[in-house]
């Protein structure tokens, strides 16, 4: 009897072990292995386990490499205030025993949603205390400030302080809250932004003269033939593609495709998961858009590439949160509608994309250009990233800091003025005297 019990136990153990080995190594659906809900930043790709767990039992170093694989470039661009290399000196040994800032996961623990705070931080809000407990001795202005307010009151960020450092505050103090003749940056010419060698437009128009609307098609006008997107080119893609998608677009719109795959709209596709649909998301979306598959054409309609529509109407066809619903009645929305009515130039129209898919300076093939950043998250978290990239095109620094630190104002889509004043510029000016 005892032998039989042992045999059953061994068989059951082997079956259970085999099940999990199969789950880890071969099963397509790994949802049984999730140990908790993922953060807002990663939940879309929580079933692309190997995006982070590059091996079955990856250690801290392996996880760190995975974090850096996706986030290192943006941290470098942000002039990260707390890079890993600041903490590797042995003189910081006592600090890293308390908080090991060499690794992302020390502050950003995944699958721990109930303990996750803003910015995906899973530490108590007063984490700055561990290294900066004597700040009140160095800064008179900081006496009696709570350590849980350092990064939550519009003053500091752990990583990105490009719009918040003291010299920048002093340099950009003052000015009117709204600049006169405020305009958004003009985009560089398309031919500078795409990777495509155009064909002779006249011969293309002649070739496709019988096709309805061909003469009006923006791609054809730019020297892009039908086959460039639809295939049917014997040398490359002999099969006619009736509805070419992301794969076709990314061939020429390289930077746009890269940004799209880094943001919320394309991060699932980038991990070879089923493309994102609003019904999978945690934000509020319109019911009739729930199954809208996210790719280039969910915002840019085929053969009708009106970017003004992509910059507002496309967003509002899906997004149904309060901030989005308030856009049309907001001062920004009024500028957009005035521009669409022909009363204002396009550069004075403020759209959803003006802030969430901003126009950024970049170098493409060695040439400085202004292009649209298609990673909607690039300047969104923390929202102070927007100050230099977006807000200061039209507003002064003080207004931008105050506005972005006011959740109610953000909710109303900036209808009104900030209800509070963040004193960081005042304090910086006082010290500079």
């Amino acid at each position, binding site marked *: 009897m005892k032998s039989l019990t042992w045999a059953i136990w061994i068989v059951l153990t082997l079956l259970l072990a085999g099940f999990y080995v199969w789950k880890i190594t071969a099963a397509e659906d790994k949802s049984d292995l999730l140990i908790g809900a993922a953060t807002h930043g990663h939940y879309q790709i929580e079933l692309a386990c190997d995006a982070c767990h590059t091996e079955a039992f990856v250690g801290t170093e392996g996880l760190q490499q995975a974090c850096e694989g996706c986030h290192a470039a943006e941290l470098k661009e942000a*002039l990260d205030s707390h*890079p890993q*290399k*600041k903490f*590797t*000196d*042995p*003189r*910081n*040994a*006592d600090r*890293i*025993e308390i908080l090991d800032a060499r690794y992302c996961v020390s502050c950003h623990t995944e699958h721990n949603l109930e303990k996750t705070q803003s910015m995906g931080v899973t530490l108590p809000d007063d984490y700055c205390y561990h*290294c900066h407990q*004597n700040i009140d001795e*160095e800064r008179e202005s900081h006496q009696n400030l709570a350590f849980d307010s350092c990064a939550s009151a519009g003053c500091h960020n752990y990583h990105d302080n*490009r719009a918040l*450092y003291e*010299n*920048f505050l002093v340099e950009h103090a003052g000015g009117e809250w709204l600049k006169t003749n405020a305009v958004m940056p003009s985009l560089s010419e398309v031919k500078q932004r795409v990777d495509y060698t155009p064909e002779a437009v006249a011969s293309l128009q002649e070739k496709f003269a019988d096709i309805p609307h061909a003469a009006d098609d923006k791609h054809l006008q730019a020297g892009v033939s039908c086959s460039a997107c639809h295939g049917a080119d014997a040398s490359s893609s002999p099969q006619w593609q009736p509805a070419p998608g992301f794969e076709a677009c990314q061939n020429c719109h390289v930077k746009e495709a890269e940004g799209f795959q880094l943001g919320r709209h394309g991060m699932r596709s980038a991990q070879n998961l089923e493309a994102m649909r609003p019904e999978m998301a945690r934000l509020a979306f319109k019911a009739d858009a729930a199954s809208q598959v996210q790719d280039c054409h969910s915002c840019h309609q085929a053969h009708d590439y009106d970017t003004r529509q992509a910059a507002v109407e496309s967003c509002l066809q899906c997004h149904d949160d309060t901030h989005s619903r308030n856009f049309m009645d907001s001062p920004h929305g009024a500028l957009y509608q005035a521009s669409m009515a022909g009363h204002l130039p396009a550069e004075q129209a403020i759209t959803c994309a003006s802030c969430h898919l901003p126009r950024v300076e970049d170098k493409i093939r060695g040439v400085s250009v202004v292009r649209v950043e298609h990673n909607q998250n690039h300047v969104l978290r923390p929202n102070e990233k927007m100050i230099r990239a977006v807000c200061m095109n039209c507003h002064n620094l003080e207004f931008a800091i105050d506005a972005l630190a006011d959740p109610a104002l953000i909710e109303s889509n900036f209808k009104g003025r900030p209800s509070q004043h963040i004193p960081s510029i005042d304090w910086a000016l006082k*010290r*500079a005297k």
Partner: protein
Amino acid sequence: MKTKVVNLAVPQVSGLRRVAALAGGLTLAVALSGCGSSEPTGIAPKKYTDSLFAVMKADRTNYTKLVVARLGPNGAGVVKPVEHWQDIPDGTPLPAQMFRAGAEAVSELTDEFTYSLQSIWPINAQNKPKTEMEKKGLEYIAANPGENFYGEEKLGGVTYFTAVYPDVAVAEACVTCHNEHKDSPKSDFKLGEVMGGVVIRVPL
């Protein structure tokens, strides 16, 4: 002073900083000279850190005099040495930042030694001495101009040979910048004076 073997393993990376190259070269030289001996051989930590410091000091002085003084506002005026140098197209690191950038770059290449620039009168409070050995060393070199300080300390369960070398004001710009900076706790530095110290650590 006990003599310990310092066995560096410096990766062969192009553009390796000169300090790392020197360390690798010295180790190699000693390893070759030790062929045939059964006793472990290597460079004495003091000689090793003294050599590293020589390179650091030469590079630091050269950057201050040959780049910042020559091309900065007191020279040709084509570069701006400012704290947030990355934020302007013609910005260049301040000499202390250049030194720290070197230390950080070395830390990404090897963990066989680390170094940092500290002071008992730092502009950035994070650069004031933290460990007891750092405090003793920085106070010693400030009180005894021209002398170095050596010791051993245990940090994070690892014993280190710690050497502290004087960092001297080599250019007028060093003195005026530190004396006039709003965060500087000392405003009467003079050319040739000890302003801080270079702390080099080697795990034993």
